[in-house]
């Protein structure tokens, strides 16, 4: 993997500050809604499969590309691969999906898609990420699951 990096010198973006919790959010007695920032915090520290950098530092994910519809239990995340031919795009999307499936209540429908126009095969990748049966089968593959878990390590 090291000898032929697809994107050897990616642009590195600044990390956002730690979230400041409000009084009501720290109060376990109060039910507060999920907001995009809370969802974003779950995914911003996922590691890129190629670089020792986070998806936030590579600008693959951003808070403005996270949409939460609490009433209908919908969460939509758009991510932007660093280059438009990135062969890791499906793996990155899968990592985001797995992280959110593990962290959020099961009532949420999680849609992970490539930002419009940012990848040469975005329709094919979106279709694959959206196919729950194929995602379920992929996650039963031990070697793939190991790669995903490596990306998710330390992402909290």
């Amino acid at each position, binding site marked *: 993997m090291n000898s032929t990096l697809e994107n050897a010198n990616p642009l590195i973006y600044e990390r956002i500050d730690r979230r400041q919790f409000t009084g009501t959010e720290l109060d376990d007695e109060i039910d507060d809604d999920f907001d995009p920032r809370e969802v974003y915090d779950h995914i911003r520290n996922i590691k890129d499969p190629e670089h020792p950098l986070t998806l936030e530092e590579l600008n693959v994910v951003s808070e403005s590309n996270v949409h939460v519809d609490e009433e209908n239990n919908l969460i939509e995340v758009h991510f932007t691969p660093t280059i438009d031919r990135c062969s890791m795009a499906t793996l990155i999307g899968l990592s985001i999906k797995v992280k959110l499936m593990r962290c959020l209540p099961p009532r949420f429908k999680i849609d992970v898609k490539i930002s419009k126009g940012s990848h040469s095969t975005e329709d094919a990748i979106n279709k694959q990420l959206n196919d729950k*049966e194929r995602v379920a*089968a992929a996650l*039963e593959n031990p070697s793939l699951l190991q790669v995903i878990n490596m990306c998710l390590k330390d992402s909290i």
Partner: protein
Amino acid sequence: MIFDLSSTLTGHKDRVWAVKWRHCGKILASCSSDKDIRLWKQSQNDDNWSCDYVLSEGHQRTIRNIDWSDDGNYLAACSFDATTSIWENKSGKWDCSLNLEGHENEIKCVSWSPSGKLLATCGRDKTVWIWERIEENEFECASVITAHSQDVKRIKWHPKEPFIASCSYDNTIRFSKEINDDWSCYQTLDLHESTVWAIDFNATGDRLVSCSDDKTVRIWKAAEDKWTCIATLSGYHNRPIYDVSWSPTSNLIASAAGDNSIVIYKETQPDFFEVLIRKEKTHTCDVNSISWNPVKSNLLASCGDDGLAKIWDIK
């Protein structure tokens, strides 16, 4: 119209992928990512449905689908582990009598022909396999149909004629039959705009219903071996539609979707279909499969990602 919950079946430890009634209408089978098949029966004293039998250790991975033979003595199950198991009822006990291997990877569906002599399987390797029963406990692969260009999601034998319908991630439905000693595709329906998740024939076999990731249900009609779309039912689901079931007794169609809802349609005039009822929140997660009871026309079974199977009373 009444759409009441009659029974909630708990026991599976993971998402439930499929439910299917035995032809007698007295046993419901369900299969799950927990690698078990459960058989549910109504107890004699209190009418409640409960787990009567667990068929386990037949597969290494998710059991994706199941199908009863017409005589009810065999249950076939297919798995992401690339094998199909045949379970046989021997004086009340269920044993795995056979394991069919051949597919490269995940098998998505299995279907018995009405005669019980043929079995079809399909999967992610884009193929449909036709298995022929040579002897009681021996199957041989009679053909591998390679018509689809992607993952084949579902297969269904015609209720009367010796042909098979399959649907796929390639957005098409295809019909295959035996021509000159080999099985091949002779017609393709390509109106759906995304993955076709499921298909079902009506009792006489002159209609087919299909459902898709494009959030529509389509009704197809056969005239002299040619299938045409006579109705597109859209706007009733807002997430992918994972299953459809055409009741052999009441002629009603039910669809189940990723929006947790079930919709029931009726043919109110020839070739004209209307929604009778849309039931929301039937499960707390995606509804993966539904099945009309073949004897008691009011009973509909469903199952979902919430790990539950449910039986509904619809009148």
